[in-house]
């Protein structure tokens, strides 16, 4: 067994109204960042888990996203491996 680290990024699906992201974009415009076209507010979950190999660790994290971490109705997720500590 080895230890693997991942960051799971969860964002509201395109087309779903994201009032927090909109408030952030509005604030950035107010600060003069006129080029900001859009902001989406999501969340990041950092996971550390033991698995026989990287592929199985990655597959387990995918299963976690499907079953708990992301809501399939409203959210998309992206899994990024992190350097092991």
């Amino acid at each position, binding site marked *: 067994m080895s230890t693997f680290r991942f960051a799971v990024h969860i964002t509201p699906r395109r087309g779903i109204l994201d*009032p927090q992201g909109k408030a952030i974009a509005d604030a950035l415009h107010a600060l003069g960042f006129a080029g900001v076209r859009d902001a989406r507010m999501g969340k990041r979950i950092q996971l550390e888990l033991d698995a026989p190999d990287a592929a199985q660790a990655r597959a387990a994290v995918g299963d976690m996203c499907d079953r708990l971490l992301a*809501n399939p109705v409203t959210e998309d997720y992206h899994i990024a491996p992190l350097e092991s500590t």
Partner: protein
Amino acid sequence: MKFGVVTFPGSNGDFDALHAVRDALGEEAIYLWHKSHDLEGCDVLVLPGGFSYGDYLRAGAIARFSPIMREVSEHARRGGPVLAICNGFQVSCEAGLLPGALLRNEGLKFVSAPVHVRVENADTLFTNRYREHEVLRLPVAHGEGRYVADDETLRRLDGEGRVAFRYVGADGVEGADANPNGSMHDIAGVVSEGGNVLGMMPHPERACDPALGPPDGLAIFRSMLERVAA
């Protein structure tokens, strides 16, 4: 008829539901602890309002894995009535008992206020004691009540008469001002495909005692008596 009110860690509407059933409706009601696997012979289950598990991750996302949810889902699959209020609605969507999801209010603020809803279908297990298009005044108290579903789901809900309640003004007409959270199609409550699970963000159990205002929510409980007992 025996009602079981599920208490999750963080539930706060469980007593209100128990009080409504016992004292306003005059039926038997007990608490069911979320760690139990025993529905204790209850005919109707209530998933109450509150902040189960602190709304961590997403409202209702952790509570749906509580031990008792296995029995709640089986009860629903058998056609048993489930009244899912506020946080209970969120839990039911997460558990797949109802379609869609409930997201952060469009205005980003927690809304605690009386609202008006219109009965969109007066021929359900939960609404048969109302008149079609009757306007009710019920309290809401939520930060994540914006109902969201894909277009196909919304079409089906509308087409199959499964939108139970819609937010309207006091005059019974929809409008942006009448919708407290930005819910799609002004949806305040929906029923499951089998018609035996109702999820709604407003609190009917807090509108059952005339001492607290018009008891507009009581007919939901009475409607269940009518159908389940019959």
